[in-house]
């Protein structure tokens, strides 16, 4: 597809106190393509996403959006650029209902008054398209939703808008069979509409089913970013668990992969 990436990261470093979580990470997201971001638990996938969306500030590196170098200070900036994110830790407001959560920050209005009727209609349609059938009322508080229902609300919230890049961090983790299929279809449809989509998942079947490119993080380093068609299932698993597979991946030196029971219980 298009040769210039929509979103490009280069040399991203991120530390939390003494712990460096991301080392010199690069990632390119192309319009009209689904880029799968894979990696072991704790590899740094979610951290990378939060760096992109401005929840975390980056220590070093550049973010380029449509060829312009940008700095994203907070999620507002990211949204302004057209980057939508479904976070792994969903971050819904438990004290608000489904409709209120789905339109949070982008409420529909009639003058200064909230246009609840329109929002309710739109929310209903979106949820139906995602195969959600067990929600009893659109006015149910999200605190009373099941895990999968919450997940769906978060997804619906992010895809309701006209954005340029959609990043989904393990969106199908809590979903049932039918709902997973719908979400994967949605992901494909978004890419086909010319958006850049980043999909994080531990499920290799899903990854291969929808993605055009695969980027593998290994212990905070980008092991490889390749076309999905060029690699096999087992090669990707090797990249995930070992950081390398044949001539792909990181040089064969061991980064610090150990449980380190560090000094005292300093709290």
């Amino acid at each position, binding site marked *: 597809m298009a040769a210039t990436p929509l979103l490009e990261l280069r040399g991203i470093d991120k530390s939390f106190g003494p712990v460096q979580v991301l080392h010199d990470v690069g990632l390119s997201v192309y319009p009209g393509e689904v880029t799968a971001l894979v990696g072991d638990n704790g590899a740094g996938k979610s951290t990378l996403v939060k760096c992109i969306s401005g929840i975390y500030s980056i220590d070093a590196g550049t973010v380029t959006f449509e060829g312009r170098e940008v700095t994203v200070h907070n999620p507002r900036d990211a949204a302004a650029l057209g980057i939508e994110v479904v976070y792994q830790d969903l971050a819904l407001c438990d004290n608000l209902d489904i409709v209120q959560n789905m339109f*949070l920050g982008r409420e529909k209005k009639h003058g200064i008054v909230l246009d609840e009727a329109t929002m309710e209609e739109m929310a209903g349609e979106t949820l139906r398209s995602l195969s959600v059938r067990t929600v009893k009322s659109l006015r149910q508080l999200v605190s009373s939703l099941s895990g999968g229902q919450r997940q769906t609300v978060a997804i619906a919230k992010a895809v309701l808008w006209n954005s340029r890049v959609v990043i989904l961090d393990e969106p199908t983790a809590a979903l049932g069979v039918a709902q997973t299929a719908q979400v994967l279809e949605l992901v494909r449809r978004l890419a086909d509409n010319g958006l850049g989509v980043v999909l994080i998942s531990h499920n290799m079947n899903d990854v291969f089913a929808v993605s055009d490119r695969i980027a593998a993080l290994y212990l905070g380093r980008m092991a490889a970013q390749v076309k999905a068609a060029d690699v096999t299932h087992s090669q990707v698993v090797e990249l995930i668990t070992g950081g390398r597979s044949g001539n792909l991946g990181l040089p064969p030196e061991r980064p610090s992969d150990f449980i380190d029971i560090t000094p005292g219980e300093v709290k």
Partner: protein
Amino acid sequence: MTTTTETAGGIQVVKPTVASYIRDYFARVRGGDLGTLPAVLGLLVLVLIFGTARSETFLSALNFANLFNQSAQIVFIAMGLVFVLLLGEIDLSAGFASGVCGAVMAILLTTHGLPWYVAIPAAMATGIVIGLVLGVLVAKLGIPSFVVTLAAFLGFQGVLLTLLEGGKNISITDEFVKSLNNGTLSVRDSWIFAVIGVAGFAAAQLFRWRGRVSRNLVAEPFGIVVARIAGVALLAFSATYVLTLERAVNKAITSLKGTPIVVPIIVVFLVIWTFVLARTTYGRHVYAVGGNTEAARRAGIPVDRIRISVFVICSFMASIGGILVVSRQSSVDPNTGGSNILLYSVGAAVIGGTSLFGGKGKIIYAVIGGAVIIVIENGMTLLGLNSGVKFIFTGLVLLAAASVDALARRRAAATGS
């Protein structure tokens, strides 16, 4: 049985009937979704207690009218505090802020001889500036609001003392200001106010109902809407009836009847803030930030600005509380807004059902909670106990009212979630 209808993007739903609606309401109540019900129950219990103990005085029209005037300061501060509490913050300085604003008004009126239409806005502006400072300190510097407002609590006490030159009282004589929390509407105006209020409520309810029905969304049964309007009308009209009875202490000397002027003032603010919280983007964002700040930030809500704004609203409402209490006392002293005012105001909001942890609360809670507090104060002073015993009883009665609330919720929780 139930009939279904098609709505919101072509989904099949049950069309509620009056019967099913009522059934669901009770199921919800049993399920622990109680709203203001327990606080209202607590209030009824209190009225019963004091009504029995001092029936001829507590239940008199005079005392009923007094309740409104006595509650004004606490209710206004509590309404403002609801915003701050919705964000999980606290404002310990609201009491003295109201004192400072009241003093500003009194000084402008008395010392500088300015008219009320300068002095009152100046007091309100003072409140807004105070809120702005507090809000910026909390939101931008990130100092815990407890500490910022504790510092402000001390600071404003000092400001008040300094304004009053170390402890003088300043009396005001401006008739307009004095009438705010002392005067009454004429009987005719009282009824006009009641009718307009009820009509407005009815219009809003019907308008919303029609909006939903016309959009084919699930709406409440028409019967319920009508019943609700009728209930409010009944309440408003019977209160107006009582308030327009003659209640002068000495009927030979003077006549006293009509709704206290402070009632429309409270109602106006109640309506405005309820509207803001329930029907505007701003209100929605306040709930969101209070419910989950991180989620709100991720949704692109300007969290800092919301945080500053609630302190501004709180101090602004405190300023009105201050204006009203000065109006009532016709004077301001270094203790105006001090003493238990703050704890009572926070207590009012909390008893009404506002959570100290943020995200849960409504403006009406402040009014109902304020009513609980004031009924206790009012009733206790009628009993004519000596101070020690009075304090103990006040504590016990407050506890009793809160227990009614807690037990209602607990019973509900046991059967439901």
